[in-house]
């Protein structure tokens, strides 16, 4: 039994255990313990992450219909598995204490929640371990349905959007299946290697078809435009820790599959050779532009949200665009940026969802128009969210800055100014909306009904603090993550990034985060010294406010969070046209019309007429051949 088998077995056990322990209090801590075990088993394969080990295969292999199924872990799988198990561990920890009690008291099934979470982790590990196209597809479908299970635990809205997800995801899966059967009929095998060998001899049309099928199929999971409508609401309304988990890693599985098929097998170089008819673009450019629009549109949709969870979920879609964009540049810097962003995004997105869930836990709402001023009540949650949004916005000293910097740098070096511009517009929207998030939640005026609330319970704070630390430390020492990235790049055949603990060194201006952050901290230190050496300040109650010499009673709303950024919205408001919804609606009504016709066929009251008609037609066809 290889370490991989042990890992998968323990992961399967994690699914089973909650089914037995049920709604008891022990379920959460037990599951957390089991995730820790999974993490330790993963660390036994840590050699993969540092490029010092050959892929670990599973002892299990199957022969079905003459097709060989096998599983293995390489550096890419290891990297994604690390994020998956980490997200599972911390989400489960977060869901162990008071949250579990509240969840259970509301009549929901804790058993189902933990089983669903563990099932997600398990199926993802199976997908990450896939050793050929068929097991990739099986893992893919398992992941899809596991995340459907998780989403459908949420509210009615989540259920409705999960339903939408099923439609998109299954249509996407069918596209993938079509693609891999096409590959099979050409190569006679589902092995990655056979596919890779066959690619050079395929004509452009075939590669286009495969590229389209795989990109669309895997793109659904990543919520690439125009398949993005399902994700935000489905993720947002999932039970809190589940949303943190899904937001952190779930849709990255689409990216994983894309890396395997488009980068590792077909190869970005081949995509560059594919011309888009009647334009000067290539297949790679086309997908890169899709990625850029996936950054821009969902990010600006996020700006309009007034529910904290939906805002975050929309950003989750947008950030996926950066990852894909970086990987499609396919040089050492860009692909490193894209891959690193997977890790970074997982960390800050989880911490953000957790801090929002902590706020919901205390106040009962995530409506940004009904919160405010919680900073003095929940200072640690505030800190966690602050660190998270700095990461999300991609500003130093957090880790999000490093990965975005790498992507930008690569875009400039590769000479794609328009793509760069698009990415920057996206970042602008991100900064604006994360400010709205933290302002409306923690800053501004405290509401009277929130005067007595307390800091989040420790079972929630611990995971948040751990993740915040990770966000900061990997921003300070990006080399920690870049080590893994370099092994991944080597494993998938991308140019390997030369790096050091502080960042990268390149001729046209490198990046050393140790230096950047130290200067930043020194600046803060000076500021703090100035502040502390100044006059003594007097502490007043948060509700003790004056304006123009008048005392402001607590029920006076003097600071508005509603209609945030009115000036900007006045400018760009007309651009929000719900075009994609319109597109989707148009497609649905087309199908509806056609199926009405089909039903009409069956409602026909002269069945014998069809019979004669088909006989006459078929007879005339077969006899006409003579």
């Amino acid at each position, binding site marked *: 039994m290889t370490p991989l088998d042990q890992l998968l077995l323990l992961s399967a056990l994690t699914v089973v255990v909650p089914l037995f322990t049920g709604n008891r209090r022990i379920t959460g801590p037990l599951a957390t313990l089991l995730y820790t075990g999974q993490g330790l088993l993963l660390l036994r394969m840590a050699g993969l992450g540092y490029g010092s080990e050959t892929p670990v295969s599973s002892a299990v292999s*199957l*022969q*079905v*219909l003459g097709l060989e199924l096998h599983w293995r872990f390489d550096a890419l799988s290891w990297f994604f598995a690390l994020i998956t198990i980490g997200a599972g561990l911390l989400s489960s920890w977060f869901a162990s204490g008071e949250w579990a009690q509240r969840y259970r008291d509301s009549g929901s099934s804790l058993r189902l929640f933990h089983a669903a979470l563990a099932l997600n982790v398990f199926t993802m590990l199976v997908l990450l371990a896939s050793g050929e196209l068929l097991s990739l*597809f*099986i893992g893919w*479908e*398992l992941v899809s*349905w596991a995340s459907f299970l998780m989403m*459908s635990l949420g509210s*009615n809205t989540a*259920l*409705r959007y*999960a*339903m939408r997800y*099923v*439609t998109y995801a*299954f*249509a996407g899966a*069918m*596209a993938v*299946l*079509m693609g891999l*059967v*096409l590959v*099979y*009929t050409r190569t006679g095998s589902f092995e990655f290697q056979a596919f890779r060998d066959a690619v050079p001899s395929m004509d452009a049309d075939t590669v286009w078809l495969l590229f389209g099928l795989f990109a669309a199929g895997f793109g659904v999971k990543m919520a690439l435009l125009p398949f993005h409508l399902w994700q935000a609401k489905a993720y947002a309304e999932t039970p809190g820790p589940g949303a943190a988990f899904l937001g952190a890693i779930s849709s990255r599985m689409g990216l994983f599959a894309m890396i395997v098929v488009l980068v590792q097998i077909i190869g970005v170089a081949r995509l560059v050779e594919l011309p888009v008819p009647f334009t000067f673009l290539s297949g790679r450019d086309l997908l890169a532009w899709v990625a850029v629009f996936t950054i821009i549109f969902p990010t600006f949709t996020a700006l309009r949200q007034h529910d904290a969870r939906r805002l975050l979920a929309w950003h989750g879609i947008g950030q996926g665009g950066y990852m894909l964009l970086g990987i499609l540049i396919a040089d050492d810097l860009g692909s490193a940026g894209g891959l690193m962003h997977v890790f970074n995004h997982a960390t800050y997105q989880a911490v953000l969802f957790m801090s929002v869930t902590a706020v919901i836990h205390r106040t009962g709402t995530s409506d940004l128009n009904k919160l405010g001023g919680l900073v003095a009540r929940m200072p640690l949650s505030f800190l966690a969210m602050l660190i998270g949004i700095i990461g999300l916005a991609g500003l130093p000293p957090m880790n999000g800055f490093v990965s975005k910097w790498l992507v930008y740098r690569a875009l400039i070096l590769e000479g794609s100014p328009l793509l760069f511009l698009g990415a920057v517009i996206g970042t602008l929207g991100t900064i604006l909306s994360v400010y709205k998030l933290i302002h409306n939640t923690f800053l501004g005026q405290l509401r009277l009904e929130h005067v007595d609330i307390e800091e989040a319970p420790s079972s929630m704070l611990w995971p948040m603090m751990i993740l915040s630390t990770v966000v900061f430390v990997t921003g300070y020492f990006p080399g920690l993550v870049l080590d893994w990235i370099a092994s991944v790049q080597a494993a998938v055949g991308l140019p390997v990034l030369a790096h050091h603990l502080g960042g990268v060194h390149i001729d046209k201006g490198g990046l050393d985060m140790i230096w950047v952050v130290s200067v930043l901290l020194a600046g803060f230190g000076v500021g703090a010294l100035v502040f502390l050496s100044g006059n003594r300040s007097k502490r007043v109650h948060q509700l003790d406010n004056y304006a123009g010499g008048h005392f402001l009673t607590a029920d006076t709303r003097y600071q508005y969070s509603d209609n945030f950024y009115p000036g900007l919205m006045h400018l760009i408001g007309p651009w929000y046209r719900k075009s994609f919804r319109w597109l989707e609606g148009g497609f649905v009504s087309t*199908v*509806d019309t*056609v*199926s*009405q016709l*089909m*039903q009409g*066929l*069956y409602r*026909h*009251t002269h*069945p*014998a007429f*069809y*019979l*004669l*008609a*088909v*006989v006459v037609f*078929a*007879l005339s*066809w*077969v*006899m006409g*051949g*003579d």
Partner: protein
Amino acid sequence: MNELVLMVALPLLTAFLLPVIDRLSSLAARWIGPLVLLLTAIIGLSAWSQTGSGAITIELGNFRPPLGIDLYVDQLALLFALAVTLGTLLLWPAEGEQRLRQSTLALLLAGSGSGLALSGDLFNIYVLYELIAVVSYGLAASRGTAAGQAATLRYLIVSAFGAALALAGIALVYQATGTLNLAQLAQLAPTQLNNGQGLAAFVLMLVGFGVKAELFPVNTWVPEVYATAPARVAGLLAGVVSKLALLIIVRLLILLFPQPEALTVMLVLGILGVLTGELAAWRARDFNRMLAFSSIGQLGIMFIAFSIPGKAGVFAGLAVALHHLVVKPALFLLAQRWGGSLEHLAGVAKGSPLAAALFILLALSLIGVPPLPGFWAKLLVMIHLLEQQSSLYALGAWIIMAGAALEANYLFRVASSFYRREAAATPPAAHRTGDLAGASLLGAALAAAVFLIVPLADRIEAMAGQAADRDHYIQTVNPEPLP
């Protein structure tokens, strides 16, 4: 070996004796039907191992064909005979006041269905097919509602026309060859039927037998009959009877008409069936109609699969057919209580969690989610379709994929409504234990198949190899040469 004849004779005999038995003891009349079916199933199962190495033939009255009537028992035929017996047992439709009549009809169905699967000549096939048709009219109209009778009348009209066409096709075959024994026909087919007349005969028989196999466009009776007939009867028709008709068509294709034109006709009609069936099902707002349209779509997939030439097609088609044979009856068992408008099903998961979970399992397998058996069947069909390197077969593959995507949408629209928080105003009654047990049994079989997929696939492949082997058929029956 001749005890296999009992699979046909015993249910028929019991059916005729049932009124008499009822006079003597109504308790006996109630139980004798299922018991007889159980007995015949055991007879069939005990013969199973003998058919593994090669098919066997039974000459009734020891007259050699073509003078005598022969039964041809290979694994495929035996499997379908068993399926019709066990299917009738599982979906035993007798209930209420008309118990006696229903039992008689069900036994007739089982007997004639087994006979149809095992028959070795076209004449018997025609006779038994007609018998099944008459039985199914009786069963379909047994609810006695006006809508049911109207639907059955329509069914009767199409079916009668279809039978007439099939008979015309058989007549053409007889005119060309002078025999109706399948083995002998198989010998003569390459010389006598490989022409326009042969193809015309095939088309007539395809359309004629296609009525019950839900072949587009002679399947217009399907949605109304399934919606108005008792759900168990609908399950029998959709699950078992349709496959029997399909079996005949496949036998004819293998033995008599290997011409590519014949396959193309079937392929085109199959594609149209998937297209119309899945689209119409997507719009259906009634549980039974949805299942009916979905079964039209699934039968379309089978027609597409069987139109792949050679053993590959038989293997792929058989896999889909067997899968559907398990799934559709189970769904119709659930429809026993869930029939009618889909709106009534909102929130039913709270009251009947097991039924909801079963529905999800069956739906997942139906749309082909790995690692459930439906996925492997679909994968097989896809691979062999695309291997044909022909655009029409590739179109079939694309249509199957699109159909599956639609199917996922409408099945899971229903499934997610089960879990809606607010329940419907008039929720359906809870399932009866019998229905739920039957559906659970089929669901468990499906789940078990996940783990047994490797041996199952080997068995089905062997079965397909045996069935697709024309020379084996001829040699086994070894008919006397025509004068």
